[in-house]
């Protein structure tokens, strides 16, 4: 099996991201236009300079026309992609491979989602006709099964695990409070987090990602062209993507304490990028904290902690903004919000700001490390899609 990667072949030369929020006053078109304009400006290009587009939306529209109409793109290739919550990362992947292949010189990846027009809280899947036997459980309920399984396997008292999960939520709210683009910009005490109403299993409202509208975009070119657009490009060190077979749901060997798809993409991405010690090589990581137990388990799947030890590292502050490896310095899905199609690109946007030293001073990470990781997943424990990227400021 080959997964060669495209290390140092492609660079991001411009990015943009809207605020993620309940944008009652903004349409999908508005969000697309705002993100695209910011991104064109960031790269110093005009719409006509873009040769091809990859547009990610999970369920806010269909076909490339959903992007072409608001931006008035005429007769250019616009590919619409969808891959659950990794939709935004998938758009970046398509655009990056397109320029790496030489088919195009300049490509844009744009992810957008308008989730707040449904009239319901949370995310609701588009109904596909079926035999009526499919699970109707919420994502919160599916991920809530991770917490007791983890506690039992590693002998963590359930109340102590509750503290660990609250600490993750607390940290992400701390970071989001320092992010003007975040949906929730308020610090929340662990007492408030623990007292929040139960949603599923032991998970309360503050264990769940924010649900927001938003859009984010990136412009990619071949690495050798990057300096024509910016002094500080971000080079793609690794792009890894894995789709599980869904057998975790029906395989008695799966124990709900890890996500094999995520571990596979991490291993592949580290190999592509040449990373051997992520905890000490990465400047930061953006991970898919859709629910607090997800972030906990990801610390182990991504190699930031040994199996069964991440809960201790969380309590020790290892993943705080000032810790050994800051995780979700922009607030993560928890406080930044989760417009499905945009989230993967939003994660890359934080790496873009942090590695270029352009994050607001109150959350800029002080480090001499030059590589960052984004991790984006979709689906549920047992049937998951996973994406990992590694980005860096230096070639080689």
């Amino acid at each position, binding site marked *: 099996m080959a997964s060669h990667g495209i290390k140092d072949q492609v660079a991001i030369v411009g990015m943009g991201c809207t605020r993620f929020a309940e944008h009652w006053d903004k349409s999908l078109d508005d969000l697309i236009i705002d993100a695209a304009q910011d991104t064109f400006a960031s790269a110093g290009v005009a719409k006509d300079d873009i040769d091809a587009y990859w547009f990610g939306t999970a369920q806010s529209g269909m076909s490339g026309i959903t992007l072409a109409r608001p931006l008035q793109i005429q007769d250019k290739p616009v590919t619409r992609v969808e891959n659950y919550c990794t939709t935004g990362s998938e758009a970046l992947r398509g655009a990056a491979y397109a320029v790496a292949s030489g088919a195009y010189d300049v490509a844009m990846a744009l992810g957008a989602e308008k989730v707040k027009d449904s009239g319901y809280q949370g995310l609701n899947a588009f109904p596909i006709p079926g035999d*009526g036997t499919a699970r109707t459980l919420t994502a919160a309920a599916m991920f809530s099964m991770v917490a007791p399984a983890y506690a039992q396997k590693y002998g963590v008292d359930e109340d102590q695990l509750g503290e660990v999960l609250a600490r993750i939520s607390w940290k992400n709210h701390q970071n989001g409070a320092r992010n003007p683009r975040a949906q929730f910009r308020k610090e929340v005490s662990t007492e408030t987090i623990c007292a929040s109403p139960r949603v599923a299993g032991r998970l309360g409202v503050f264990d769940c990602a924010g649900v927001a509208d938003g859009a984010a975009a990136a412009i990619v070119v071949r690495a050798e062209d990057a300096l024509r657009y910016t002094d500080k490009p971000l080079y793609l060190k690794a792009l890894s993507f894995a789709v599980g077979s869904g057998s975790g749901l029906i395989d008695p060997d799966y124990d709900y304490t890890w996500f094999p798809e995520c571990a596979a993409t991490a291993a592949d991405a580290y190999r592509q990028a040449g990373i051997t010690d992520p905890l000490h090589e990465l400047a930061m990581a953006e991970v898919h904290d859709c629910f607090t137990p997800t972030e906990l388990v990801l610390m182990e799947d991504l190699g930031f902690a040994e199996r069964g030890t991440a809960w201790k590292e969380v309590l020790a502050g290892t993943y705080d903004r000032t810790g050994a490896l800051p995780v979700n310095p922009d607030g993560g899905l928890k406080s930044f919000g989760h417009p499905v199609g945009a989230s993967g690109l939003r994660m890359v946007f934080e790496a873009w700001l942090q590695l270029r030293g352009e994050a607001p001073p109150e959350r800029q990470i002080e480090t001499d490390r030059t590589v960052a990781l984004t991790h984006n997943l979709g689906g549920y424990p047992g049937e998951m899609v996973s994406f990992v990227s590694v980005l860096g400021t230096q070639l080689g």
Partner: protein
Amino acid sequence: MRGIISSAGYVPYRRLQRASIAQFFGSGGGKGARAVASYDEDTTTMGVEAARRALGALDDTGVDDRTTELDALWFSTTSPAYLDKTNAAAIHAALRQPARVGAYDFGGALRSGAGALRSALDGHGTTLVVLADQRGGLPTSSDESAGGDGAAALVVGPDGPGTPVVAELLGAASFSDEFVDRWRSPGDQRSKVWEERFGETRYVPLGAQAWQSALTSAGLEAAAVDRVAVTGMHARAVRSVGRALGVRPDALTDGWADAVGQTGAAHVGLVLASMIEQSEPGQVVAVVSLADGADVLVFRVTAARAAWSPADPVAGQVARGSDLSYAKFLTWRGAVTPEPPRRPEPARVSSSAAWRNESWKYAFVGSQDRTSLAVHLPPSRVSMRGGAVDDMEPVVRADTLATVATFTIDHLSFSLSPPIVFAVLDFDGGGRFPLELTDVEPDAVAIGDRVAMTFRRLSTADGIPDYFWKAKPVRTHERSGTATTTGGGR
């Protein structure tokens, strides 16, 4: 010789204490309790549960149920899930019956239950008679408190070497008369009744005539009857006819009026199944059903009864019921509508997709890879272990017990009775599937709990019930393979 080859009753898990009605309204109710179908049950699902038990008892005699070849499956109820469309077809599918078995509904009137049973006994071939009903009325009405929900299933046919009858029909009589005692217009949720004393004057002579006629055809005196029950929705007439039967005082049974309630078209089958369960070889049992006339069936329990063991006796099901609040009862009946979770309601089931997946959806049949032996739920064409293609055997998990590997309680998903309790289940003999639990107290679920499968209605959209399987706690497990539960609550 024709008779009953196997039989079973089904009494849903929940009970409404009749006193709780008066506690709420200041009137209505009465003594005892009535059985209440769960929010996810209807007459079709209850019929499936009764039929699984009747056929399951045959499995346990050492006779493979495949050799208990049915010629027909008849279903009777006054509260069908569908009109126009045959409800017996869903029961047929859930029981994995071959296409050549005719499936028919006997619907509408309360008497259709007794009529289906009598017709099967008079007919030929082997017929599975399934009776199910949900009875109720307006709040505080006697129909609400005296009614009950339940089902019965009786395998009726000729005495045969592999399938001996456990109750031989000795005699029968049916008397009919046109008088308007109880009626309901199509679409109405409540029945109406004429002044009780008028109906009583009709039922008492009809019952006496039918009783005498049946005894004569059986060649028996009333004193020879060991056990008899009188059933019907007219409580005064039931009592009066019972008093006039002339049987030994200890022979008259109460017919579960106090503990289950009158289960309408199903009741004649429920009390008959219960009496057979409580009888010994050689005893004479009889049932008198009063509905727009009188039907009497007289049986002698045969020597084969000794080797036949009921899968899940009615008395045990009655004993392990769990109380339901009157508020929940009113909610489940649609009398009150609490705020639902703010989530989209389920979409309509695709008819063509359901048909393609009939054995999975209706009968919980998965597949097993011949090479790796990995069990796939739902059935799969490509194996998750080794990747073999189209090399699987069907594997039935409907009658298999499972263990809770992990579980959660979902407060957000749409449900007719939130919260949803959902568990990842590992089946005995292989296979894992995440499935909703039912007939369960959310606080009492634990990893390692044992559960059995039960056929339920998940939801209804556009008039199409979405039938599938759930799991429920095994309260005291009697025997494996019958997917039945017995004993007290946890």
